[in-house]
């Protein structure tokens, strides 16, 4: 069990290094993959606006 945990930790580090290598060249603020970060609230894609009676005005 201990060895599996040790192996998992090692794999996690190398997945992270791979993530870094693939994301470092992306435009600043953009991240993809397993460790991707949330987008800033201002640029987060918003869902479809809810229907409102005002839409018909």
């Amino acid at each position, binding site marked *: 069990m201990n060895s599996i945990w*040790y192996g998992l930790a090692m794999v996690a*580090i190398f997945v992270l290094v791979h993530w870094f290598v693939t994301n*470092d060249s992306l435009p600043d603020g953009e991240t993809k993959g397993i460790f*991707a970060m949330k987008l800033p609230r201002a640029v987060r894609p918003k869902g479809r606006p809810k229907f409102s009676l005002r839409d018909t005005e």
Partner: protein
Amino acid sequence: MRDIALVAVLFGSLPVILRYPYAGILIWTWISIAVPHMEAWGFSRSIPLNLIIAATTIIAWFASKDRKLPPPHFIYWTFIIFLAWMTFNSFFAFKPSWSWQFWDRSWKTIFLGLFVAAMATNKVRLHALMWVIVISLFYYGVKGGVFTLQTGGHYHVVGPPSSFIEDNNSLALALLMVLPLANYLRLQTRHRWLAIGTLFAMALTVVSVVGSYSRGALLGLVAIAVAGIFRTRHRFLYLALLALVAIPVFNFMPESFHERVQTISDVSTDASFQGRVDAWQVAFYVARDHFPLGVGFYGPQLKEIFNTYLPGVTAHAAHSIYFQVLGEHGFIGLIIYLVLIAGAFVTSARIRKLSRGNPELEWIYQMASMIQISLIAFCVGGAALSLAYYDVFILDVALLMPLLTLARATATAKKKVASGAAASGLIGENPLPA
């Protein structure tokens, strides 16, 4: 088997490091904090893996276009002055052959911090480094938490041999420091299942801290819990979660744990606390008698020195980051160290102020806030532990330099855009003809 895997993976990573020097920084940080070779129990212990990775990283960094110096910040100069003072002081150490070996470990840690400060130039790099620190310590935190639950909390959780975090108290403090950093990642990660996994690992790490039986770490745990109240927007949810973890964990622990916790309120009869007071006295006398120098790295705990002041008493390590630096590097060393800590708090407060209310800088705001809580854990828990030059502390402080630079750059760019728009009449009045 572990040795073969570790050595193969590390040597296999060398070409990647030559191409991407910052990948070397990540692996160097992992080896420094997680000390995986000490957990491999075989031939990898005798290979200078850290040196090989560090040397490859430095060569690649020289050849790369990466920034060569950290931002010229107050913290950078304080690090340099602290390192210079420790080096100068080591020449006058009581037992130089003893002290230089610890100097050798400490300068490398500070250099790693300076490399991080120079090379962590964007969000991805800072984020990746945070993950490395968290994964490195969660390896012990999760394992220790599971061990505590499996054994009913009857045994102490200890760290890897021959490392900064070998004993139960040091490991517990290191785990405490990583909790706020993990919380930053939990808040910032896009994948929900990864955020949930991080939260689960944080809970097990709290169990591990409790399972260490470290009273200093328990005080640190209370300190970060209180600091967290002031840093969260969802106070009731936070308190409910805290209670949800704390109450079952404390009830789960055996009687021996509760007896040990009770001694916090009755320090006068506690031999362990008396040992700490002895060590603090020796550190003060040493600094006074060797003014303005100290007796070098880990000098005050040498029998020859300790028993000069307290004959017949068993020599102890300083058991306090402050008294450790005082005894080892004198009053001047302590002043520089305190200036470094104060500088870190001031810088993190400045970053928070710069980034508050700006959605684009939300991640910087959260990172600075969580580093601040990590430092609070270090300052409170470290008051009773000898962990003054610990890697995570150095990295916490070093990360604030690039973070401030990024916050300033983004805030300035935004101001320019706003003032440009105002000058062209796009803001403040309706630019469209009536």
